[in-house]
């Protein structure tokens, strides 16, 4: 039996525009001391579950997130990054805040999908506060309804690349 390369999604270079946007944002933050790995906690703030369908595929065997140092964790206490999907419903406002408060710093918020960016099609409803930024400081937005796993992966890899560059600059190790 011949060894075969596992079927995983090929990826292109990280989008420089996204990296630059993040760099500017993080320059303002004072302490960033993470390694070249990020723990992700997905949180549905009230979406239609379309983003969850794609996130679940992103976290599955096809995209093999672990090869990038990305892992999905089961508790916000173990997370570096909050992956927020859906419009922020008024009922989820408090649970979202508490989840964020449970995460140790340094930490990021990634708004996934059009709803998490500004409420999407649900903007203006009596039941919606708005996008993720109605409650939390958003570091990165990934557009789409829903964004594809490839688009989500691009955003997360940009976050990783930036994180590693930061680490390399302060310690002289790592990078890339």
């Amino acid at each position, binding site marked *: 039996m011949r060894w075969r390369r596992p*079927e995983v999604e090929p990826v292109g270079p990280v989008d420089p525009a996204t990296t630059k946007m993040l760099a500017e944002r993080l320059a303002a933050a004072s302490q960033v001391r993470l390694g070249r790995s990020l723990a992700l*906690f*997905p*949180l*549905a*703030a*009230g*979406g*239609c*579950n*379309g*983003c*969850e*369908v*794609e*996130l*679940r*595929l992103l*976290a*599955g*065997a*096809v995209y093999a997130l672990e090869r990038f140092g990305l892992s999905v*964790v*089961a*508790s*916000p206490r173990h997370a570096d990054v909050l992956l927020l999907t*859906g*419009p922020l*419903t*008024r*009922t*989820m*406002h*408090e*649970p*979202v805040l*508490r*989840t964020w408060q449970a995460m140790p710093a340094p930490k990021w918020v990634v708004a996934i999908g059009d709803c998490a960016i500004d409420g999407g*099609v*649900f903007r*203006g*409803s*009596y*039941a*919606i506060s708005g996008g993720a930024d109605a409650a939390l400081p958003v570091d990165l937005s990934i557009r789409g*309804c*829903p964004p*594809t796993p490839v688009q989500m992966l691009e955003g997360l890899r940009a976050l990783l690349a930036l994180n590693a560059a930061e680490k390399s600059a302060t310690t002289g190790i790592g990078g890339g």
Partner: protein
Amino acid sequence: MRCADIIRTGVAVPCQPWPRHLLDAAAWRAMAASLASDPTLDLLALWGDAAMVHALLREPATGATLPVSVATESGFYPTLSRARPAAAWFERMIRDLWGHHAEDGRDSRPWLDHGAWALHAPLSARPVAVAGQPEPPEFAPPGDRQTQIPLGPVLSGFAEPAQLRLTVTGDRVARLEARLGYAHKGTLSLMRGKSPLAAARFAARLSGDTTVAHSLAFARAAEAASGAVPPPRAIALRTIMAATERIAGHLSDLGAIAEPAALARLREAMARAAGTAFGHRLMMDAVVPGGVGADMAAGGAEAIGTAVARVTEAVPALRRAFAGLDGLSGMGVLPPDVARALAVADLAGDVAARVAARLGSVEHLAAALPGLLTALPAGPLRADLPPATGEGIGAAESACGEVFHALRLEGGQIASAFAADPGWRLWPALEAAAPGIAVADLPVLVASFGASVSGMDL
């Protein structure tokens, strides 16, 4: 008198394709009493309107679908939940959205409204603005020697927001109680006053995993209400999309039970094929009232055909793999009589039975798709909807059961809308099947039903 006969004594109000029977309170009470003793009638949905409550019932034996209504009196209507316990979830939702109270209902706790909305009874004739202060939900207390595990509304593993209260004895679940509403987006309110074409994007976002089924049921309701007939090519493309989505949905839920890597690859293959054929991996907004939004792309039929062939090839191995999992037999048994009372007769049995049914469904749909792809008729893609006044009800099959949409149009605009996600039947079924399972098996049980939160949260 049989329940269906009582319903037919009511005045028939025009509603397509099934006339809606209007009962007075006494006849509605007689219908409720008869429902208690007549297990042959399924309660599919119960919803509100300005000063009215509607129910959708079906006789599985004849296939007759019966919409039936009663006017509210001083904000009250006679309960159905004494006869059909699952009606309590609908009655709680009707109170939260329309402000109508079920007289002598089984459960008067809120369901969707946690006190945080900007409006009270947002779909009532006169919603009241409120400064929302969320209230903690109430759950039934634990019994002697029992403890409770509170889960949610923030859950792990890409779950939608929901509160699940487990009452346990040791590591065994004695009772599961769900409280939803965290993902309520006010979708029905957003649909009002819009044309069906403009409101279709809200129907498509009721539940992302069944976006085609919801869009299709909504489109059928809009077409029925306005007398439009979609062209043959559109009908054929819709059938392909619905089958593609149902296969994908089954693969997702099965992958949450076992064989996650193999099923993720197949699920991804289906998403890519859908993306190639219809320009969107979930086929969101592809079905529109009157037809379809766009034609299938060149190479679409081949893409779907290839992905489906992969699925067909994998089914026997998947069947063997699932059959080898002893734990699924006897887990989460839904007794047949309970399943029938909850209008989910096909979900009776244990997790293993539901897994087998899903694999059977995948095989059946995958076998049908190649024929559908080659028999695609030529012609236009969409019929215009005249700006009509009328009522319509539409149904469509999803991976986890039938979806129903009801629409009332006035001059081509939506005056009233309701969407009955299968979740309304699945969540009560999930609660009924939970007693006896190990706490750690909860995710497997949940996946075997595949109930959506967002679709039910509206």
